[in-house]
């Protein structure tokens, strides 16, 4: 009955008004797109379809447009890698090359082995043709364009994983260099392997695609429509992936790898997934491009192409799906139409006013100069690009900002669903650390530390700065590998497990120096905390079947439920980028994010650091409330009043060793503890004075 009342109370205090606001708030997912943006998409699609009529069927112009679409597809693929996952790839054209040569090889007369019975089934499937020639028949590959589109995508994805796998440990700029190396190696191999690629002269006579028995031939129009379809599919795929559990995991990696891993994101899998999907886009586009040109030479895939794609992504907006499409199309149009026209005008002007050098200007050849200027200009003055990936949120009104802090019902609150999911019912201690030793080179950060955390308890870890408290958390959560000792969680050893697995087992943490995903919103941050409890994969994200939709909607609901722990502090800001929040609010978001993972055990690293006394008290009450809901908590804390009011037991670390453990008021009279905090003289002098200072 009491529980019911508090629930009702909470709904009232938070107010239906706030929840209505939340529904309008810009979504990460599942809030259907507003009608005007659907209308805009329909308009864009319509313009794309009637475009050949608009420009009156001029084949050269349609051809330029088809090329622009090919580069838009590539930019979309690069955007997955660079924009979503934050992995700078300077050799992206290599995957374009792989897709291009795959189709080129299987649809040209480059490789013609002798005919034998082996090829007959393939001939029956129309994959090869028998060519009659003097001195024995030969095999000519005639694999269909439509079949090669997905095959090239898969092949390129395979190479994406192959190139990606060994490089994933590297940080941003080094990864860029390695990809640049791969990007250089692929065209050189193409040049030096004439039996497959016809070397520097390039593949010739690549077959044009056929549809219902009609060859596309050399007119640009059919290619243009295939290009439109390709871009449409890739935009759809990018958008769906971005607004899903997969996209959130990528963005988490982009923002902060360590935090992403600690929040349950498997770094290796998600980075490889980004590489694979990005490469697949390029592979399919390569096939399209070669079918259109009907030739492929190594020069089409060199470093300048990779840089041009990077310029398109940077110009349009890193991470912004529509941005990179617009960026790619603008730059291509600039290159193939506008600069030519502008040069002509300048020549005319030069003739008119008799200025010699004006008549010699060829702006089209200065396109790379323009690319360079764009890169520098965008980085210096508009890093978010033409169409930024994240919309600007309306600032809070003064009224909202200065609103009276409304805390939710006093603890005990009604139970959060995230906390009831995975409650621990075992008999062993929830966390059992035995003889844990961590060494950094010559420094022993932890020496033989043992600590037992019974289920349902609150344990505080205190100690002077540098005593190894945070190292203890890092070692327990898998961020640091201990040299010896064991850690068992809910009865299972976890000391060798990576951070995302530890989180999956039900142990979540916050960081001493706050590691949120700074450019994501409060809601997105908390949703990422839920990563390990959700199941949507790339296919689910793409097709959004009812099961996926339900999962996502429920996840959203639970996130808001968690935010209510902090009353009206976070809810009106659910939509705000966390880097714009106050320090105290960022601490709250980090706790909410950890709660979202349905933890059995919550590790809080100095949760009240930087908060004023009132905020500290408020947070302590909220932590107490969580504890009352059955959550086991270990906290590192300097503020002794917080420790005393929350903890059942206190463990004291000094120089990496546990020097005392016991109930708070026993520990604070312990002489060794006083010495560790205040020095030898204080301990020898007046113990009461020391303990007063401690309290």
């Amino acid at each position, binding site marked *: 009955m009491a529980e019911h009342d508090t629930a009702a109370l909470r709904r009232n205090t938070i107010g239906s008004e706030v929840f209505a606001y939340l529904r309008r708030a810009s979504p990460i997912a599942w809030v259907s797109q507003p009608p005007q943006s659907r209308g805009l998409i329909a308009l864009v699609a319509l313009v794309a379809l009637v475009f050949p009529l608009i420009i009156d069927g001029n084949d050269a112009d349609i051809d330029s447009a088809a090329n622009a679409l090919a580069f838009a597809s590539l930019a979309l693929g690069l955007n997955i890698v660079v924009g979503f996952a934050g992995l700078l790839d300077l050799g992206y054209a290599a995957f374009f090359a792989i897709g291009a040569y795959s189709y080129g090889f299987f649809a040209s007369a480059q490789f013609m082995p002798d005919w034998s019975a082996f090829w007959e089934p393939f001939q029956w499937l129309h994959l090869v043709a028998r060519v009659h020639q003097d001195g024995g028949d030969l095999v000519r590959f005639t694999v269909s364009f439509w079949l090669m589109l997905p095959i090239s995508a898969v092949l390129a994805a395979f190479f994406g994983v192959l190139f990606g796998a060994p490089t994933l440990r590297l*940080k*941003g700029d080094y990864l860029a260099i390695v990809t640049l190396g791969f990007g250089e190696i692929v065209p050189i191999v193409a040049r030096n392997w004439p039996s497959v690629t016809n070397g520097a002269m390039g593949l010739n006579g690549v077959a044009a695609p056929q549809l219902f028995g009609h060859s596309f031939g050399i007119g640009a129009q059919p290619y243009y429509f295939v290009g439109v379809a390709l871009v449409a599919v890739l935009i759809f795929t990018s958008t769906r992936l971005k607004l899903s559990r997969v996209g959130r995991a990528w963005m988490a990696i982009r923002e902060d790898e360590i935090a992403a891993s600690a929040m349950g994101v498997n770094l290796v899998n998600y980075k490889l997934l980004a590489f694979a999907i990005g490469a697949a886009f390029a592979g399919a586009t390569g096939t399209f491009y070669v079918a259109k040109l009907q030739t492929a030479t190594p020069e089409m895939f060199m470093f300048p192409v990779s840089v041009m794609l990077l310029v398109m992504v940077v110009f349009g907006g890193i991470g912004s799906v529509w941005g990179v499409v617009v960026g790619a199309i603008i730059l291509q149009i600039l290159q193939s139409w506008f600069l030519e026209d502008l040069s002509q005008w300048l020549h005319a002007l030069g003739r008119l006013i008799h200025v010699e050098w004006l008549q010699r200007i060829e702006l089209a050849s200065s396109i790379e100069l323009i690319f360079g200027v764009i890169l520098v200009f965008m*980085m210096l003055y508009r*890093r978010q690009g033409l169409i930024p990936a994240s919309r600007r949120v309306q600032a809070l009104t003064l009224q909202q900002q200065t609103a009276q802090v409304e805390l939710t019902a006093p603890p005990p609150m009604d139970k959060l669903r995230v906390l009831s999911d995975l409650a621990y019912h075992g008999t062993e201690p929830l966390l059992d650390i035995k003889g844990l030793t961590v060494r950094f080179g010559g420094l022993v950060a932890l020496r033989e530390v043992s600590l037992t955390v019974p289920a349902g308890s609150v344990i505080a870890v205190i100690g002077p700065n540098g005593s190894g408290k945070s190292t203890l958390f890092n070692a327990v959560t898998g961020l640091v590998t201990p040299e010896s000792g064991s850690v068992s969680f809910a009865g299972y050893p976890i000391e060798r497990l990576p951070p995302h697995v530890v989180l999956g087992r039900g142990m979540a943490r916050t960081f001493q120096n706050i590691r949120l995903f700074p450019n994501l919103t409060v809601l997105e941050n908390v949703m990422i905390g839920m990563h390990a409890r959700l199941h949507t994969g790339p296919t689910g994200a793409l097709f959004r079947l009812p099961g996926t939709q339900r999962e996502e909607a429920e996840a959203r609901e639970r996130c808001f439920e968690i935010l209510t722990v902090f009353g009206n502090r976070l809810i009106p800001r659910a939509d705000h980028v966390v880097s714009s929040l106050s320090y105290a609010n960022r601490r709250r978001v980090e706790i909410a994010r950890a709660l979202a993972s349905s933890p059995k055990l919550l590790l809080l690293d100095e949760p009240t650091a930087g908060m004023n006394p009132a905020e500290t008290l408020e947070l302590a009450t909220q932590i107490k409330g969580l504890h009352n809901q059955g959550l086991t908590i270990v906290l590192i804390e300097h503020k002794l009043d917080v420790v005393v009011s929350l903890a059942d037991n206190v463990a004291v670390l000094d120089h990496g060793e546990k020097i005392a453990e016991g109930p708070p008021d026993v520990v604070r009279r312990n002489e060794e503890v006083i010495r560790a905090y205040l020095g030898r003289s204080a301990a020898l002098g007046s113990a009461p004075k020391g303990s007063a200072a401690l309290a």
Partner: protein
Amino acid sequence: MAWEAVYLQQVINGLSLGAMYALLALGFTLVYGILELINFAHFNVFMISSFIGMAVLQLFGLSGQSHVLGGFALVGVLIVAFVATMLAAGLLGVGIERFALRPLRGIPGTVGMITTIGISYILFNIILLTVGAGSFNYPNPMPRIEWDVAGARLELRELLIWAVALVLMLGLHFFVSRTRLGKAMRATAQDAEAARMMGVDVDRVIITAFFLGSALAGAAALIFGLYYNYTSFIIGYTAGLRAFTAAVLGGIGSVTGAMIGGVLIGLIEALGGQVIAVRWTDVIIFSILVLVLVFAPSGLMGRANPTKS
């Protein structure tokens, strides 16, 4: 030639290339050591410097390889050419830092590197659009004096290249290890924040790193011209990537490592071309780049940690 002589010849060639790569690699390493920034602009600072050097030599009325000088005239012209080129290159590097990179300092991630790619493109196209795409015959006043060393040919210009590179590298080593500014530089490389609090003028240190790195690229560029007797707008990319590989191989951030790495890459290029095939040289060098970064990211002498995020 006997095969021993062929290999000896390739070692001589490799050492000359290596001297050039080492000078160029130092520029990457100096900037990386302090800013953790991979400076792609360095590629084309090198390329532009070769044109500056050419202009300086032409000021002395030199063109092609027919105006041979000797004695003090030769030494004087070369000293002036090196000093002027290095100074101009250094100022170019300082300008890049001041106007394009300083506003971005402290922004995490790859923003700085993307900017340097842009600058590199701008420099590249300035040359392409002004002097054109041709390859230019480089003025070279050095007499063709050569010695026979066990069947291999050792030329005067090679000795000169080695001497110049050695003097510059020793000078840099002395600067970094013995002077006050050098000490400030090492401190900033360790921890810029702490160095600033101890009163080090970090801006000045960064400018110095760009100046010295670019000046050494200027010297490398002049060496390139005098060694190959040509220059062109495209020389920056290949030489730059090789020098960068040298810096990585030696351990990026380490001055000694860059020197050793440069010489190693020069030898690998010359001998690899001999043993396998010249058309695979690039693949060999890029493979070294990739393999070192993946399996031994701190290189031979490095302290940097490319896997930390």
